[in-house]
């Protein structure tokens, strides 16, 4: 979406809202899951899938020429299922089976059961290595495909992430973009208290990456950041996407007295409130 118009941004914002509603609906029906970790990432995922940044093919999800999106923070997979539903890959009824026995919409992405999943994730810290492999493989075949990997700020504590950062720089993978969804929380509390790895941008820069720091819940900022990615032709790009966990339903989380709200779904009552807020 080069030079997105105001109208296009408005359309993306409406889509983001619909995706948020789906996230609330399916996690509350599942009775488990990670709605707030999903909600922080909505603008980025929406822009990728609906802003023309990620080449994807509904008829042939594993088309070798596709761009890749790897969700390293696999617990946020409701955002991905909901985006794919919104894009017409799945019906609402299908993704409503989230986490239920027999459903391919598992609690974390499973590439063996859903061909739209580029990776099976859920053990944190591994997604960027997979992205390096995809990017190397595409380059070997002369395929002009871009790989985007979304990581959580909590999982940046895994040493493997920095191994992957170093290897992506070694191979000058300009067809790879890491997006850190920096929502400030991890399982037991604020990332500041658990393991403060900030600031991320200078660390990526020190490893030789091109970096951008953006407001990841502003559609304008996200679109503008993604627009610049492909102009960086000599190294990988990191987008530090500063977000709020649970963005879109913050007043509800505040009233509930828990801005982290990690790994639990909204009650049916809170979900109703959330859906009205997002209507």
């Amino acid at each position, binding site marked *: 979406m080069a030079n997105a118009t105001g109208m296009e941004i408005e359309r993306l914002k409406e889509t983001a809202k619909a995706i948020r509603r789906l996230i609330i609906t399916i996690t509350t029906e599942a009775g488990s899951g990670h709605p707030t970790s999903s909600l922080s990432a909505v603008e980025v995922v929406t822009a990728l899938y609906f802003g023309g940044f990620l080449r994807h093919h509904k008829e042939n999800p594993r088309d*070798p020429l596709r761009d890749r999106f790897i969700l390293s923070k696999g617990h946020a997979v409701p955002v991905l299922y909901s985006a794919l539903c919104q894009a017409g890959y799945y019906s609402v009824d299908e993704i409503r089976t989230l986490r239920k026995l027999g459903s391919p919409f598992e609690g974390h992405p*499973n*590439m*063996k059961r859903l061909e739209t999943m*580029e*990776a*099976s*994730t*859920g*053990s944190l*810290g*591994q*997604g*960027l*290595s*997979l*992205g*390096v*492999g*995809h*990017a*190397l*493989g*595409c380059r*070997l*075949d002369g395929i002009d495909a871009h790989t985007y990997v979304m990581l959580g700020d909590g999982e940046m504590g895994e*040493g*493997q992430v920095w*191994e*992957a950062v*170093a*290897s992506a720089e*070694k*191979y000058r993978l300009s067809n790879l973009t890491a997006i850190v969804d920096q929502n400030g929380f991890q399982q037991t509390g604020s990332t500041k208290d658990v393991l403060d790895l900030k600031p991320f941008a200078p660390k990526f820069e020190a490893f030789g990456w091109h970096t951008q720091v953006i407001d990841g819940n502003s559609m304008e900022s996200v679109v503008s950041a993604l627009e610049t990615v492909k102009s960086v032709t000599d190294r990988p790009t990191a987008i530090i996407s500063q977000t709020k966990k649970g963005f879109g339903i913050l007043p509800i989380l505040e009233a509930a007295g828990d801005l982290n709200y990690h790994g639990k779904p909204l009650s049916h009552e809170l979900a109703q409130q959330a859906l009205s807020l997002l209507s």
Partner: protein
Amino acid sequence: MAIGEAAGLKLGKASRDAFGAALKELGNEFPKFVTVDGDVGNSTRTEVFAKAFPDRAFNVGIAESNMVGVASGLASAGKIPVVSSFAVFLLANAFDQIRMCVAYPEVNVKLVGSHAGISIGEDGASQMGIEDVSLACSLPGMTVIVPADATSTRKATRAMLEHVGPVYLRCGRIELPEIYQADSPFVIGKANTVKEGDDVTIIANGLMVGVALDAAAQLAKGGTSARVVDMHTVKPLDEATILRAAEETGRIVVAEEHLMTGGLGAAVAATVARTRPVPIEFVNLGDRYAESGDPQGLLQKYGLTAEAIVAAVEKVKRR
């Protein structure tokens, strides 16, 4: 006395050397495979391939976890990555990555662990892969191959590339006796009976196949006819060959350069217990780490010898 000498075998190449040579030989025939290394390519011998095909060889540095993840991504992009390091650094260091990025999604990654067993010698226990087979076998869907000589390692390398799905191939550092001919069969999951016999079956793999043939030569002098089976594939296990051995020889000894837990012995025992319970004895490292020392001395000290197999055969005959 060198391994295989009592059985009249000539020493050949180490399995790691055969693996490296095979990769180079197969490079043009299998244009899709690439190597991913953790900076030990001169030890694992992938450097032989890397020199011939530099564009298809990636050294990601001393970072095994990332190495396995990168390989998985390459496989998803349609390549056949051959990932190698020392067996212990590959399987033990990157176990979760192998589980999450290779076994669970069942992607087409080939894992090759060199420097397996105590026969690597002087570097000591930190470098010795003695739990690798157990770790690999514990993963659903993983094929686990432990070849016994250079010729079968070359064939195993080809079979591994032809096979679709995750494979672990175990290689060692020391020279092995040549057991096979160029036209000998090698089929994943199908054991080779390398010596016929009626009184007892010695089931072995890797370096211990040569040792078992030495033991069989010694046993023959005492009038005991031992069958020797090369169970080069630990998973999937050739249960038919094991059942036939139990039925026809009534006694089994399992020999491997690995811990007791989760290795070939445990796999054979589980099969025998379920199909045709007969007495079994084991020759392996038991439940202990080894130490630094020369390879032959270590094999002696830790009981991986023809004498140990003969003693196990005598024991199993008395039961």
